[in-house]
């Protein structure tokens, strides 16, 4: 019913406002009628309100007539009547609307051009629905950052007695932020509530000797809130479309987890250093190892969050809502202290379980968390321990839980605790954040062989259903910053598969074989790679291409895309590794008598030509798949 209504474009304004992002008004511009039609239907499927045109001139006219008619613009780059970048510039200047670029061309320089012209994201064709499900975050982020800037100015003006300040800011935040469009007022209220919490934090921070830092911290905090909040929302949305703000709790436990994983990756950055980084530079944060957009968000969020936590342990206590959200998001970039994180993990485990129980995946989280807490080690050690824990976890837990653990465990085993945890917590259904994508890359290099090696031993008990599941979950994987790792990806498939008890056994085997690789170079790889590759989408990809690991290709693409798009890249997580017939093969295996062995699938996958631009049909994809399949 509603779909039909949406299709007709009849969306009551009230309903739209209450259920944002449902009903978000998108203007789609593309001269390619096939792409436009598919894009329109995808957007409608996401329950957005869609207007399409194949001419940039018409789009501009519509926008000029009434800027408030739309929340977001998606535009192709190559159009005959007007260059997409030109349209992007004009829309950004005149209407200050978020614009997402769309193109077949994923070359670094083109993507970079999009970013420098002000695109808030850059998607590669063919666009996947999972990517479109998250585009609403750009609307929120733009509003939030504008409000943030306004609040910040006000805050700095009134920055006198610390006590007064927090109240001042608090008051200002809740009441004074200009609402640009008068639209999602609900969102604003919720953000305000988060800021109220922040006020509390500031109060506590007043006693902190670093009180003079408060303005900056507050600014960063606001920034983080917006990133975290939007990420939380997206996460919750991915979790099942429930009100994002209701489920912010429960992720907190992951925060500590993040600290483990990200601390290694971010070893080059001190907490203060992170805080001092340009606050409006999510891309910079992203370079620290969180390529995907989601990751970037979490990075900004988690950086500040962890830092605050370090400063004021009470932070998480006072901000239950935010913390949980941050936790999930901050997975990518935890800077916190091990002990503190452990404590959080313990404290929040139950919450996490509760929060995530709805998805049926939360148990995995708890288990993971427990494994994390029980091994308060350095990141590398932690990775190893986690893996060890993973192995032991299944035995400890019931079978239903262990399958879920696998998800988390897999994440851990990949050496990216944070990514795994974040993935599990934040995207139980959909997948894994891009946290530590680089790490994953390196991890994959080291472990890929192991995984591959065990693949043969893992009898592909996966039926065609698995593949189908994988396909279904592909969106999930990419929905959040697409830091796809083989293990998480495969987990994902299994996750959606409804628990996949069978996985447990496989996982045990696999973990026994491969999870204890101590050579997780994840700590050094991401930061150096990322740092040097801001926007160097292509370079990253090439590096990954050159690496032997198959999975890294996918990761590479994600990294590249993440960094290239700067702020919040919607992960171009193409689960295309399942592509080119692989997906369908197992499904039809019984019908077509196609060998369902990994080798057979791999061979067929390998047939896919390499796409030097989008990597969608990479060899790596195929290998990725097979690697994942072995789980």
């Amino acid at each position, binding site marked *: 019913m509603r779909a039909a209504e949406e*299709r007709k474009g009849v969306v009551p304004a009230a309903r739209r406002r209450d259920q944002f992002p449902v009903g978000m008004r998108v203007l789609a511009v593309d001269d390619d009628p*096939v792409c436009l039609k*598919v894009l329109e239907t995808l957007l409608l499927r996401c329950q957005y309100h869609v207007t399409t045109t194949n001419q940039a001139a018409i789009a501009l006219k519509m926008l000029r007539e009434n800027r408030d008619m739309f929340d977001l613009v998606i535009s192709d780059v190559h159009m005959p009547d007007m260059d997409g970048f030109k349209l992007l510039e004009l829309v950004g200047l005149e209407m200050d609307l978020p614009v997402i670029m769309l193109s077949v061309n994923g070359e670094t320089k083109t993507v970079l051009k999009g970013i420098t012209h002000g695109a808030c994201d850059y998607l590669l064709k*063919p666009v996947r629905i999972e990517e479109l499900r998250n585009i609403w975050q750009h609307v929120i982020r733009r509003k939030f950052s504008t409000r943030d800037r306004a609040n910040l100015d006000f805050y700095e003006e009134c920055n006198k007695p610390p006590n007064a300040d927090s109240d001042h800011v608090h008051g200002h935040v809740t009441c004074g932020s200009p609402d640009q469009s008068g639209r999602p007022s609900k969102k604003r209220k919720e953000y305000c509530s988060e800021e109220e919490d922040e006020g509390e934090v500031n109060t506590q921070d007043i006693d902190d000797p670093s009180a003079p830092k408060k303005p900056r911290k507050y600014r960063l905090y606001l920034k983080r809130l917006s990133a975290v909040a939007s990420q939380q929302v997206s996460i919750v949305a991915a979790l099942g479309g429930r009100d994002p703000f209701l489920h912010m709790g429960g992720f907190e436990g992951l925060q500590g987890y993040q600290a483990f994983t990200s601390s290694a990756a971010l070893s080059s950055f001190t907490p203060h250093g992170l805080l001092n980084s340009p606050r409006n530079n999510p891309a910079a944060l992203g370079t620290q190892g969180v390529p995907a957009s989601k990751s970037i968000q979490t990075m900004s969020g988690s950086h500040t969050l962890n830092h605050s936590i370090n400063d004021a342990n009470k932070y998480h206590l006072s901000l239950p809502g935010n913390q949980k959200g941050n936790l999930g998001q901050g997975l990518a970039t935890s800077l916190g202290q091990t002990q503190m994180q452990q404590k959080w993990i313990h404290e929040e485990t139950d919450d996490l379980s509760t929060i995530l129980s709805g998805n049926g995946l939360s148990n995995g989280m708890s288990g993971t968390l427990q494994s994390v807490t029980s091994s308060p080690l350095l990141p590398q050690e932690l990775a190893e321990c986690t893996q060890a824990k993973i192995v032991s976890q299944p035995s400890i837990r019931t079978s239903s839980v262990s399958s879920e653990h696998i998800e988390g465990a897999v994440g851990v085993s990949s050496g990216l605790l944070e990514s795994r945890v974040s993935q599990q917590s934040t995207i139980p259904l959909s997948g894994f954040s891009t946290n530590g994508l680089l790490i994953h890359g390196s991890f994959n290099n080291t472990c890929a062989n192991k995984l591959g090696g065990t693949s043969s031993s893992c009898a592909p008990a996966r039926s065609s259903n698995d593949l189908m599941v994988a396909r279904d979950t592909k969106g999930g994987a990419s929905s959040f910053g697409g830091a796809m790792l083989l293990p998480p990806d495969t987990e994902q498939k299994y996750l959606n598969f409804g628990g996949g008890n069978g996985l447990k056994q496989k996982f045990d085997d696999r973990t026994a074989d491969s999870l204890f690789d101590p050579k997780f170079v994840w700590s050094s790889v991401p930061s150096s790679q990322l740092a040097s590759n801001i926007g160097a989408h292509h370079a990253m990809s090439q590096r990954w291409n050159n690496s032997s690991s198959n999975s890294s290709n996918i990761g590479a693409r994600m990294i590249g895309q993440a960094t290239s798009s700067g702020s919040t890249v919607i992960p171009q997580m193409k689960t295309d590794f399942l*592509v080119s*017939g692989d997906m369908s093969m197992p*499904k039809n295996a019984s019908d077509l008598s196609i060998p369902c062995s990994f080798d057979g699938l791999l061979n067929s996958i390998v047939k*896919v030509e390499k796409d*030097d631009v989008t990597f969608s049909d990479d060899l790596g994809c195929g290998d990725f798949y097979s690697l994942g399949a072995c789980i």
Partner: protein
Amino acid sequence: MSLERIVSRVTSNQSRKLAGIAKYRGYLDEQFCQVEDLQDEASPNFVEEVVTLFFKDSGRLMSNIEQALEKYPRDFNRWDTYMQQLKGSCSSIGASRMKNECMSFRDSCGQGNVEGCMRSFQKVKREHAVLRQKLESYFQLLRQAGPAGAATRPVM
């Protein structure tokens, strides 16, 4: 169960196989599955509409390219621009083999290789024709399967 239902189920299986075969061999990729997924009660002929639109639009684009190859010799930029459009269409529908040929055409353009462009373009045309054949059979099977078959369309 009536004979009709059995037949329709068999033919829908056939179309599933056909789709599977086409996909297995790489003619269509995962994106096509996405397009299929978008078909629902609200838009029951979505896939066929998109495919029809694709062949119409790609025919136009390909004749543009053909003309450009003749009229603007060695104008690689122009050729590349046209081919990029065609590539975009292919990727939107999941026509992976055709898309790959488009990419190799663009590679040849990048290298300034006229011969390579010509060869690639012939391949693009061939893949286009093959794909059209396959999809036509696909839809035929779907139609033969009847309403029951359509309801259980070959979902990947």
